[in-house]
C-alpha cells in the first residue's frame, strides 16, 4: 500500500485548482480515526471533512432513551447495554445515574452476554438495549434467535437499531451541501458495497468505502478527489480486504428473519421512513416495549438544550460552532449525545483538541 506521505502528496496535487469539496463520513470509527491521526491537517484547504450521523449513540432519540430509563428503573429488571449508552442524558437522568441510585444496569460487550445473564437469573427480567446500525443488529438478531430457540422467557429486546442506507438517502437528498461520501467500512462488511451504489447512481455523489487506518482513509480520499476532479461519479470499494459486493449474506439473512424495517426517529434528523429495525413475526414475543407497555405512557423530557446537534449530525456545522461546545457541554457534563459517545463528533473534537492543536 502507498504510504501516508505519498497519499498526502497525491491528494494535494490532485486538489490543486479543484472547487471546494465537502466529504462526509458516517461512521463513528472514521470520526475517531480522522481526529486521532490528525487527517485534516494533511488535507488541502479546499477539501473539508464533515461527520454525519455515524454514531449510533448520537442518533438515538430522546424518546428511545426515555423508554430505556423507564424500564431500567422497574423492579426485578436487569438492564444491559453497550458502555457508551450509559452517559446519554435524558432530562436530569442517564442510565449511569440510575445505576448509581441502585438500578441494576449492566454494561455488556454483546447481546449474547445479556442472554447468558438471563439464563443465569431465571427469576429476573433481563433486557438487552439494541442500539447500533447493521454492524451490531445481526448480533442482536442472533441473540433473539437463540432466546426463542431455547425458550429463554425472561429475556427481551428493546430495539433502537437503525439502518444506514435509509438515513443516507434522507440526508444526502436535495439541498445537501455534501459533495461525496466516505462510506462506513464496518456497515459495508455486513450489507455489502452494492448497498451504497445508490449514492452514486441516484444521488449523484461519489461514494468510496473505506477502512479505518490512516492509509486506508487517505487512499479513499484520494479516489474521491480524483473523481471530483474528473467529474466522475461512481461507488468504489476501497476496503476490499473486508468488504464484498454482497456483504455478509448469513448475517443479512438472520437480520431479515428477525427484524423488519420500521419508521424511526433520529435525533437531530426527525422521523426517517423505514430506517429502523423492529422485531417481526414470532420474534415480536421478545419485544420489551410490548412486554412492558412502553408506549404513550412514557414521559419524554424537553430536548431543547440550546445544542446544535441537528446541524452537527447533518454536517452543516462543526462542533466548535455550537455555543455550548467545551463550555457548558464537555464530556464530563454532556448536554447533547454527540458529546457523550467517544464516537460522537463533539466528543472526538473535544478529546483531540479540535482546531486547538
Amino acid at each position, binding site marked *: 500500500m502507498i504510504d*501516508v*506521505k505519498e497519499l498526502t502528496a497525491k491528494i494535494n496535487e490532485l486538489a490543486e485548482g479543484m472547487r471546494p469539496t465537502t466529504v462526509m463520513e458516517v461512521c*463513528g*470509527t472514521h470520526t*475517531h480515526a480522522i*481526529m*486521532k*491521526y*490528525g*487527517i485534516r*491537517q*494533511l488535507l488541502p484547504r479546499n477539501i473539508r471533512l464533515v461527520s454525519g450521523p455515524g454514531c*449510533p*449513540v448520537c442518533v438515538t432519540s430522546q424518546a428511545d432513551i426515555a423508554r430505556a430509563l423507564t424500564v431500567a428503573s422497574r423492579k426485578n429488571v436487569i438492564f444491559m447495554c*453497550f*458502555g*457508551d449508552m*450509559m*452517559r446519554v*442524558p435524558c432530562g*436530569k437522568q442517564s442510565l*449511569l*445515574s440510575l*445505576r*448509581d441510585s441502585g438500578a441494576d444496569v449492566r*454494561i*455488556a*460487550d454483546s447481546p449474547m*452476554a445479556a442472554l447468558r445473564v438471563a439464563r443465569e437469573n431465571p427469576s429476573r427480567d433481563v433486557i438487552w438495549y439494541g*442500539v*447500533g446500525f447493521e*454492524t*451490531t443488529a445481526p448480533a442482536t438478531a442472533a441473540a433473539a434467535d437463540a432466546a426463542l430457540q431455547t425458550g429463554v422467557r425472561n429475556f427481551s429486546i428493546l430495539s433502537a437499531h437503525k439502518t444506514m442506507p435509509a438515513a443516507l438517502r434522507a440526508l444526502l437528498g436535495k439541498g445537501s451541501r455534501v459533495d461525496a461520501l466516505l462510506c462506513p467500512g*464496518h456497515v459495508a462488511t455486513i450489507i455489502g458495497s452494492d448497498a451504497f451504489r445508490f449514492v452514486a447512481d441516484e444521488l449523484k455523489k461519489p461514494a468510496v468505502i473505506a477502512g479505518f487506518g*490512516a492509509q486506508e482513509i487517505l487512499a479513499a480520499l484520494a479516489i474521491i478527489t480524483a473523481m471530483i476532479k474528473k467529474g466522475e461519479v461512481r461507488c468504489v470499494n476501497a476496503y476490499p480486504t473486508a468488504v464484498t459486493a454482497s456483504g455478509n449474506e448469513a448475517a443479512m439473512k438472520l437480520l431479515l428473519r428477525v427484524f423488519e424495517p420500521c419508521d424511526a426517529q433520529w435525533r437531530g434528523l426527525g422521523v426517517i421512513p423505514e430506517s429502523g429495525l423492529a422485531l417481526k413475526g414470532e420474534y415480536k414475543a421478545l419485544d420489551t416495549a410490548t412486554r412492558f407497555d412502553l408506549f404513550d405512557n412514557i414521559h419524554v423530557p424537553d430536548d431543547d438544550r440550546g445544542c446544535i446537534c441537528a446541524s452537527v449530525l447533518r454536517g452543516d456545522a462543526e462542533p466548535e460552532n455550537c455555543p455550548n461546545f467545551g463550555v457548558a457541554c*464537555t*464530556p*464530563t*457534563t454532556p448536554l447533547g449525545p454527540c458529546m457523550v*459517545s*467517544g*464516537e460522537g463528533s463533539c466528543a472526538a473534537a*473535544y*478529546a*483531540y*483538541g*479540535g482546531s*486547538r*492543536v
Partner: protein
Amino acid sequence: MDDGKINMTHGSGGEAYRSLIKEIFLPEFENQFILPMTDSAVVPAGVRVAFTTDGYVIKPLFFPGGDIGRLAISGTVNDLAVSGARPLYISVGMIIENGFEKEKLRAIVRSMAKTAKEADVLIVTGDTKVVETGGCDGIYITTSGVGVFEDNITPPRQIPMPGDAIIASGYIGSHGVAVMAARAELDFTPPIESDVRPMAAAVRAVAEVGVRINAMRDPTRGGVASVLLEWAEAAGASITLEEEKIPVRGDVASACSLLGIDPLYSANEGVVLFSVAPDDADAAVDALKNVPGCKAAAVIGRVGDDGADRGAVRVITKYGTYRRVMPATGVLLPRIC
C-alpha cells in the same frame, strides 16, 4: 452533574475527583503539609519522613497479574517512592464483609506479604473490622506507609523544568485494561495481565546514577494523560509526546482499540513517570532497563522551553500530525464498535 450526592464519577481520579477533594477535604483539613496535594505528605519528625495513605476497593479482588493485596502494598510503596523517599513501614486496615471466605483472605494476605518482601518494606501495624452482609463488597483495604529521605538523595521539587525529558519506566496502560477486561468478563486469551508491582527499586536505580529528577509520579487512575496535564499546568509549559515512542504492550494496544480506550488514560500500577534534565535522559533509561518490569523504559516526550501553549499536552502522531490530550472525563466506559 452535581446533584449533591457522591457518585461513581467522584471515584474515577479525574476532574470530578479532584474537585471533590478541593471542595470537601482541603478546606477542612487544611495545613501546610496536606495542601500541595502530593502523593505523600512530608512532615518534620526528627528526620524528614514521607507519609501516605490509600484505600483499595477494586472489583474483582483477583485479576490477571495481581490481586487487591498486591495492589494495596504496591500502591502505597509507589506513592512513597515517587516522593523521593525510601519506603519502610506499612500499616494495613481491612474492612471485611460478613461471610467472606477465609481462604480468599489468606490468599490476599499472602500476596501482601510477598509484595512487601519484594518492595523491602515491613507491615508493622493493622486493624480489621467486619461489617454486616451487604455492608461492603467482600473486602476493602486501606494501607498507610512511612518512608524516609536518605542523605544522598534530593527529593524532587515535583515541577518539571522547561526542556526536561519525560520518561515512562515501562509499558503503559495495562492495569486499567486488565481490570476492565476481567470485570466485563471479556475472555482475552491469554488474559491481559496488570502491571501491578512495587516501583521503589526503579526510582532508586534512577536516583542512584545521579539523574536530576525534577518530578516523578505513578500514573494510576486517570493514566499517563492526567499526570502530564497536571505537570504541564504546574510547569507553565507545554508537553509534547511522540506517539511511536510510547511503550504499549501489543495485547494492551489491541484490547484498547477493541474497547475504544486510549492507553494514555488507562490506569497503571507499576509505572513511574519521570521528568528529568535532558542531558540525564539516557542515563535514566539505561538505569531503568536493568530493573524488573522496566525493560521497555523510554523517553516518550519533552517539556517545551519556548513558553508557547502553556499547560497543553500534545501527541505527535507517526504521520507528523498533532492532536491534543485533554483531561479524562468520568468513568472509562467501553464503546460500541
